[in-house]
Structures are given as C-alpha cells and as structure tokens.
C-alpha cells in the first residue's frame, strides 16, 4: 500500500568536528599569527599609498607588458589601496574561519501569518474604523475625493512643462537652403568639385548667415557627407541624378535609424555604414537601405555649383533628416 512506503528520515545536524586550532594550542597560535600578518600587510599597503601620493610625480609614465604605458602614481596608489583593503578583509575572514566558533546553531522560524484571532480583530478594526469615517455611506465625499486625488498629480506634471520649448517644426527643417555654400568640416572653407578626387569623402556643413555661431544642435541636423564617384557608377533616376554634380553626391550624415553619424564609407562597394547598428546604405542607389534596422534611405541633398565654382545646395532637404518621429510625414521617403 502506497501510504505505507517508508521514506528516508532527516538524520538531524551532523556532529560537530573540531578544527585543528580548537584542539591544538600551537595550531591556534599559528592561526593568530597568520591573521596578524595579514593585518600588518594592510598597514604596509596604507604606507605605500601615502608614499606614492607624496613622493611619486603625477606625470611619470612607464611601459608595462600588457598594460602598455602606465601612470606610475595611479598604479602605485591603486596597488597600495588594494593591499590596505584586501588584507584587512582576508585577515578578518581568516580570523572567523580559524578561531571563531564554528559550531552551527539552530534558530526557530515563526510563521508570518498572524494568529487567527489577531487577524479577525484586525479585519474587524479596519471595518469599524472605515465605517466610522463613513466612506461607504457618503458617496459624495468619496467621489469628490477621488476627483481631487486624480487631479492633484497634474500640477507637478504641468510644472515640468517649461523643461523645454515645444518642438514645433524643428525636426522638419535644417539650415540648408537654396544657394547655401558647402563648408568643409572642420576647416570651414568652401569647396570646389576639383577639391574632391574620385573615391574621396568629405564632411560638410552649411554656411550660416554672417554672425551666426555654429552650435552642436546645428551640426546634429546639418552634417552632410560628400562622396565623389565616377558618374557611370550611379544607378539613379533622372531627378536624383540631377541632384548630383560631376559624380559628387551629398547625403545627410545623420542616420535615419537612431541619429548616429553614418561615418564608415566602403570605397570598393560604395556602401555607407552606420557604426551604431550597422544600417548600410548604397550610395549608388540614393542611399537605399540594403542592410540593418534603418527603415528609410539617408536624405539626399541636391547640389550644384554657384557662379564662383563653389559647391552649393540647390534646394533644402526635401524630407526631414535624422530618426523618425510621430509627426514625420514619410509619404515621400
């Protein structure tokens, strides 16, 4: 019969076995010395820290295998701090393991659930007190309180409104306009088609109106990559081809996925690669996405040359640059 199965029984705590140091005074003495040596090593570590702080010049570098060029003071300070802390720890643990009582003791647990009587009392008290407040009966109070509590959280939210301006059309625009000259970044000089050889890449920024200082916010939207190919390498429709100039094509450098700078250009394959999430764009096909999580091509900037022979924008970007956002109208890319 199944209920007569004999099971293994809990044999209870095993007998305590004495350690060497518990029975042999010599072993105990040795353990004591070990602990003391460890604590002394910690003290030596502190001395090392102090000496290296005061005596070692902070600009002294030396070469170490694996670590390379290393600042002597930072290294010695660190090793001193390591010794001064680590050996306190090791000493204390050795002390506890070798010399402190190692007999396991048993403590009883209590169940967390209160006694039935207390629980009933508790529930009764809650009911009685709640009844005294009359929340159940006075529905007008209950509802108006609910309304007030629901609304009170709005104030702190509202107060955060001035954390920033409203975006307005910010995400839709850049500083590029028809006729804006392309300036080399970081030189800030205008650029002629002849400055770029076939296969060359350059980062450009729009020339801002005189007296306007360029900020990182400008760069974050305006950065453009110029790439010069042989014109026959392009695989573009007539309109997009007319946006190029003598094999030079311009794209927004801000990734349409998450806004990183699309900075890696593979000359052999004409691919642009974003180092953040590896979205890859084909330069010959108007930066069409050929790999990775980006869902839209890099916006192309139409370029031409002005009367002085400098490269300029033909028109602003026709679509917003950078990552997507709710208000973005993506019907034309």
């Amino acid at each position, binding site marked *: 019969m199944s209920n007569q*199965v004999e099971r*293994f029984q809990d044999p209870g705590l095993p007998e305590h076995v004495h350690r060497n140091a518990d029975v042999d005074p010599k072993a105990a003495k040795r353990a004591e010395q070990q602990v003391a040596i460890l604590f002394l090593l910690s003290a030596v570590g502190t001395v090392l820290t102090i000496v290296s702080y005061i005596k070692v010049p902070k600009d002294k570098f030396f070469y170490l295998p694996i670590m390379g060029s290393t600042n002597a003071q930072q290294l010695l300070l660190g090793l001193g701090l*390591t010794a001064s*802390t680590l050996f306190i720890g090791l000493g204390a643990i050795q002390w506890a393991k070798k010399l402190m009582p190692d007999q396991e003791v048993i403590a009883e647990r209590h169940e967390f659930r209160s006694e039935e009587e207390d629980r009933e009392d508790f529930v009764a008290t809650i009911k009685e007190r709640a009844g005294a407040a009359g929340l159940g009966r006075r529905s007008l109070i209950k509802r108006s309180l609910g309304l007030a509590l629901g609304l009170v959280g709005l104030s702190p939210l509202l107060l955060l409104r001035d954390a920033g301006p409203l975006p307005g059309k910010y995400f839709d625009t850049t500083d590029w306009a028809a006729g804006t000259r392309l300036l080399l970044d970081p030189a800030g000089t205008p650029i002629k088609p002849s400055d770029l050889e076939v296969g060359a890449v350059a980062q450009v920024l729009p020339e801002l109106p005189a007296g306007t200082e360029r900020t990182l916010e400008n760069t974050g939207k305006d950065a453009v990559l110029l790439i010069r190919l042989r014109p026959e390498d392009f695989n573009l429709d007539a309109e997009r081809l007319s946006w190029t100039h003598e094999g030079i094509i311009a794209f927004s450098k801000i990734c349409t996925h998450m*806004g990183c700078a699309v900075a890696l250009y593979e000359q052999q394959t004409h691919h642009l690669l974003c180092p953040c999430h590896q979205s890859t764009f084909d330069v010959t096909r108007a930066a069409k996405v050929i790999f990775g*999580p980006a869902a839209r091509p890099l916006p192309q900037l139409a370029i031409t040359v002005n009367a002085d022979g400098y490269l300029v924008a033909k028109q602003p970007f026709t679509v917003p640059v950078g990552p997507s956002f*709710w208000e973005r*109208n993506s019907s034309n890319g």
Partner: protein
Amino acid sequence: MKKSEKVAGATANYVDERTGAAKWLKKNLTKVFPDHWSFMLGEICLYSFIILLLTGTFLTFWFDPSQREVVYNGSYLPLSGVHMSAAYDSTLHLSFDVRGGLLMRQIHHWAALIFMSAIVAHLFRVFFTGAFRKPREFNWLIGVGLLTFGIVEGFLGYSLPDDLLSGTGIRIAEAILQAIPVVGSYLAFFAFGGPFPGTSFIPRIFIVHVLLLPGLFLALITIHLMLVWYQKHTQYPGPGRTEKNVVGYPLMPVYMAKAGGFFFVVFGVTAFLGAVASINPIWLYGPYTPGQISAGSQPDWYMGWLDGLVRAAPPLETHAFGHTISWNILIPGLIIPGILFTGMALYPFIESWITGDKREHHLLDRPRNAPNRTALGVTAIVFILITLANGGNDIIATHFHLTINGIMWFTRIALFTVPPIAFVITKRICLSLQRADRDLVLHGRETGRLVMMPNGEMLEVHEPLSDAKKWTLTQHQNPDALPAPLPASATVGLKGKIRARLNRANAVQIPAPTLSELKELGDGHH
C-alpha cells in the same frame, strides 16, 4: 573581569539606558545566518554599492556637470586647445591632474560593472533556487526594481563625461524618446531642454545620477535588507535543516567578521581592477560632436543586450496619415524589454498560480528538482546572451573574420529557435540529474575499486551514501513538501485549462527513491 569586558559592559549599559535596545540587540546580534557561497552574491551587490557611493562622492568634488563650452589646456597634450564641454574638460582634469583621480574613476566604473554583474548573478541564484516564493515576493519585486534602476543609473553614469562614445549613447536614447508615438518629439524636447544635444541634459542627468537614483537605491536596499532580516534567510536543504528552522552561524562575531571582511575583499579586488585595468579611457574618444563617431561603438554590457536587440530588428516603419511609427525602435527598445521585465517581476505570482502552492518556503530548491523553472530561466538567459552577442556583432565580425550580415541573420533566426531548444534540453538535463540522484541513493557511490569474484566476474564496489546525503537527495519529494493537486474547480474554462496544462508540465518529476525501495534492493553491493 578583564578590562575589555568591563568596557563592553559599560558601553552596553550606556546604550541601553538611552535606547532600551538591550533586548532587541541581544536577539539580533546573535541572529543566525546560514552559510553558502551563493549567499555572498547579494553581499557583493551591497558592497559594490557602498564603493560606488564613496568613489562617486570623490568624483563629484572635481566633476563639473555642465555643457558650457571651454577650451582644454590641461596636461593631456593631444587635446590641447580643443573646444569641449566643461563636463569633458573636468573629466580630463580628474584623469590627468588630480592625484588618484583616474584611479577613482576606474574603481567607480569597475564597481558599477561588478554591481550590475552581482545583481544579475544574485537574481539567478534567487530564481533557480526558488527563493522568491512565498513569503519573499516583495523582495523579488524590489530586486527587479533595483536591476532596472541599476541599468538606468549605469547608463547615465557613463553618459556624464560627454565624450564621443557616451554622446553617441545619449543620441540613441534621444532617438528612442523621439520614437514614442504621439508624444515622442515633445518628450525629447522636454528631456533635452530643446533640440539635441543642448546644454541641459548633462546637468539634469547628473542630479538624477548622484541624488535621485542613489536615494532610491538606498531606500530600496534598506527595505530589501530589513525584509531579509525579518523573514530570516532561506537555506539549502540538508540534514537538520527544515522549513521551521534556520541553521548557521551567529551574526556576532562570525558574520560580523566574515561579512565585514568580505566588504574589504570586494573593495580590494575593485581597487586592484581600477589600478591595473584601464576602463573607459575617454581621452582617446575626444569630445562629443553629433557629426562624428568612433567605429566599434559599444555600450557597457548591461545595455549591450538592448543594443543587440536593436541591431537585430528588421527595418519596419509604419507611414500613414502623415505620421511615422518606428517599429524598428519601439519593438526592440521598449516593447520586448517591457515584456521581459514585466514577466520577470510577475514570475513568482505566475508560478504560484500554476502550482496552486500558497505555502511558505524557506528551504531552497535544488535547480534540478524544479525542471520547468530551471528550463525557463535558462531559456531567458540564452535569449539575452544571443542579443548580447549581437550587440557586439561588429567586434565579433572583425575578430573572427565573419560578415555582419551573417551574424545578424544568425541572430534573427537564433532568437526564435535556440531558446525553445534550450528549454527542452535543460528540462531533459534536470530530469537526468534527478535520475542520477535516484541511482546514487539506491546504488551508492562508485568507488573506482574493482574486485574479481571467485567465478571470475569483475565488479565495481559501490559505497552506500551517508544518511545525511540520502536525506538531502530525497527530501524534496516528501508528501508535505509537494503542493497539493489543483482542485477541479480551478481548471474550468480556458484559463483553467491553460492552468491545468501548465500545472501538469510543471509537475513532471522522477520519483525520488524511498527507504522501502532501498530495502527491497538489498544491501546495495552489486
């Protein structure tokens, strides 16, 4: 009476006359804690948090959380004359012109990595041993909160120096905000005080990093520890260990010495890493500008799995009615992590719903004895490991001469196929280990000694296990340790059917051997 005893007596008297704490202290100073190496994982979390507070405070004395533009003229010559933010400038100053500044920066960063690693390791220990079961569900929830806030805190921390790498991370965070439907661009503008990058973000995340989140950590950790204290620690099964007791060593003096000593060991190890292992050398990256980037951009490991998910996402966007929804950001960046973390937080309640087990548990499970839970945990770990590997796909590609294309397709397919396979394999392994336990109890341990019988037959001598070991290997299937079957009323309807099915899957076990079986087999020498 010795002098030290006199002093102790006088101190105790002094404290008690002013607080009346004698009774409480007497009880709590002799409080018993069970011993196991895996219980130190939580301690590492606590100690590295303390190290973070100490080193972080040091860093704030020099760090200037400002995006005001300055020109660098410190002692790191390659950046002389470069325009940069005051945040980056002061981080360079800390690294090159403050004695021990670089050391403290590196200890801080290493401690953060150790903090997050220890939280995750502690989470695994708690999950796989079932320590989250009643009455410890609150502590599980607090732990999930600490993990979540820890990820945010770490991200904000390495974003503060405003170098090219961290600025790129902030750019990505801004894109995630921007991708949130309806309110995204508003949220981004409010968070950044206008257009990205602006000059508000670093000062704002600074105060979140050094005050708001540390305060929250302190509060949550305090509650976490108070609950551990009050509920008493769980313990592994073994002879003398029951659901009603706790077996171990007293706080004073053993655990004071061991735990206090362990704090110094953790500090020493972290200091050693800070001394010899360069981490986040921001001077090599240069100051942040949105037009530049460094190849091989990698977040810290606890963000790497998110980045790996984002990298694996298909290029999906919805364009309709003049609006854009970026599924390629929302799904990997918010929806999947949301599901994972919600599932993790709710797991104790889900498991208790499946098993119908509402009893208190203080004895831990050996992972093999909960095959379903163990398999589920391994499934989640495998999923995260695949995403983590994909988060370093560029590095893997260059080191192992693979194509990024190949790695990404592997990841996309593996994310859906490998975790279920891991589930099945883990469950099989758990059941096999249960069978091995059963064999051990019934047939004893192999000794490696061969004997030749008079008839020429060769036999290996098996040695019976000790009573303690037998008990340890079989105690989990005592009738009072197993949950009662679900009542019939709980399995009606669709929800009930699902529950019954999960309950059945969960109950798959190899029957533990009994003493009766052992007796039937004879003395076990065969």
